[in-house]
């Protein structure tokens, strides 16, 4: 029971820190003075053209998935490399 209580306190403390970070970040976001300008939307003609491309046998979805996968792998690798460089595992 004591352990559960301590665990609960620890959980609350860590959660409090997390919430505090969240609160501070939210406060900073709210205090940010520059509003986002009203940017134009993509022209509907381009969307139509895109719909035409999707209709063809071209593997557009596969290409997007592949691109996303490779970009994700590359980003992950770059992150891992930071640690590996620090440990002098890689140059």
């Amino acid at each position, binding site marked *: 029971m004591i352990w559960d209580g301590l665990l609960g306190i620890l959980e609350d403390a860590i959660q409090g820190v997390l919430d505090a970070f969240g609160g501070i970040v939210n406060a900073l976001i709210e205090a940010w003075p520059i509003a986002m300008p009203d940017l134009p939307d993509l022209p509907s003609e381009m969307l139509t053209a895109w719909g035409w491309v999707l209709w063809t046998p071209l593997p557009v979805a*596969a290409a997007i998935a592949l691109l996303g996968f490779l970009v994700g*792998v590359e980003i992950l690798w770059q992150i891992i490399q930071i640690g590996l460089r620090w440990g002098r595992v890689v140059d």
Partner: protein
Amino acid sequence: MASGRARIRRAGIVLAVLAVCAGFVSVPGAPASSHECPPTCHYDDPSYEDALIVAGAAVSVPALVSAEAAAELAAWYELEAALGAVATLGEAEVALGTAEVFALGTEVGVASTLSLAIPIVAVGTAVVVSYLVLTADRQELSPFSANILSRECDYEGAGWIPQYEEGSLWTPIWGTPYIFNVWGIECPEPIHTAHHATWLMEPVLFKSSQIDSQGELDACRDWVTDHPGYTGLIGNDIAYWEFQVWQSFAARIAGHMGGPGTWQQQSDYPTRNHWLFDPGDYPPLDPWNNISYPSSCGMQLYVAPPQALVSKLVSTPTAATTHGPEWSPDGDVIFPTPNRTPDFVQAREVLADGSVTFRDAIEDQLDLATVLGPDCEYPTALTADVCRHALRSAGFRGWIRYAWAEPALEDEDELLRAPGEVVDVLRSPYWLPLAPGQHYEPQTELRIEVQPDPNPPEGGESLPPDAPPCEGLECFQTGGTPSFQLHLPDIETPCEKFPFGVFCWIMDQLGSWFDQPPIPWHLNVDSWEIPGTGQSFPAFAWDFAAPGAAALPFIQQLTGDELDGGGGVFGLLRNVLGFMLWLWGLWVYGKRKFGGKGLPDGDAALPEEIGA
């Protein structure tokens, strides 16, 4: 030796961090019998080896240190010391005896612990203190309300009554209203928020903000900050708030300006404490609907006040009526009404105590700060899943977890419960019972405690009979106390702020691409005149997939019956090409990452030492 010590120190820090991480990773949801290493555990405890394996150092700890040394140090220091020793042993050039290794490891462990703990504690303390200062006794609105408010008019300090001047935040600290002045403007006047003045502020902000919601992005805020009426807000003139609410609706009535977004520009009203709208004067009008629609300021919400059908003698002047100062000090609000001779009519009216009941209506129907808690407990016998649905229906949007109720013989409710029925619904942060009929924050974390089976099946208790799977914001947890489960804080997406919003904009635009369905090819050409001939080229439309088109059967063969490119020959081709594309992409990427190191053909491919 210095570099060796530096390496050892670095390795010790890494391993200490890994050990700490392993401890954190192992706690959530883990059975109590493993991965928990309280300070009293011993070296030969299997959990130690688990931790070491997690840390990437699967060695036998008892072989490294003696039992005597183990008894002298605290358990966690021992672990860190052992990990440091393991790292030391990995260095072939460092040959130290067990005792030296242990001492060195202890030194590294203590140093790394202190070097990590001090800044962590300092930063954590600063963060917590900052948070407490910023949020202490904040009379904030619920997160949902805050989001809407922020989205509505871009009020700074979402969840707060909008500031008197741009850039300042009203922040009561420990009960005393203060202002955190962001831009150097001081506004010392106190202000009440939704918690003090119950419903008045928040819904009124909705109403007042929409008055001038057309056009520019900041129209809402401009109105609030520039309009003289805002002085009334600062002065905490509650009647004025009501005035604004009613006036908003009155303006809508008066204008009959058509659809949403064409709100009448509200005139200035220099008076306060004045009820603009007397519901009894407008019996034929029924504007009090729940309305929501998007506009330039985001979603706007309205609430319907209580109404009743009454029989009333209606005497309305002919043609339009310009209401005088009683209605509008400027006399510029015109309410067109139909011709009618005095007569008794059945009319729907706002109830006489509408101002009070309207308040409740807002709080209950549109109130975004509190939620009525349902009764999931005795005498209502509900299962966990039914109770969960009731809680969700009531508006609770936070975590809902489930747990077996702990045995408590003095709890009469529990004695009356059948296995699987809800015993208690507890709420965070102190895990007190959820009282039916009370209001709670929607994000309140809840725990449904279920009556356990007194004769559990072999193998122990599992989940309650109808407990939902552990996913999203709902999860079953064994034991009667909350397990170590953390959740990330809700952080707003700064899409309304530059430059962060650029990414949102890009994602939105890309999202519109991704959401775009396939469109069969088609072409519509308008009629056009051939230059110099006086003849017109006839308009024509060319559509593969048009109903009745000659090519339609053929196209259906290609694309499948749905014509959306999901099947048929097109679909097959797409799958084949997609497969080949993936092969090609992986090959190219792999060659790029590891390319140039492949072995060329022939014996020259082998390194010299191997070839020799």
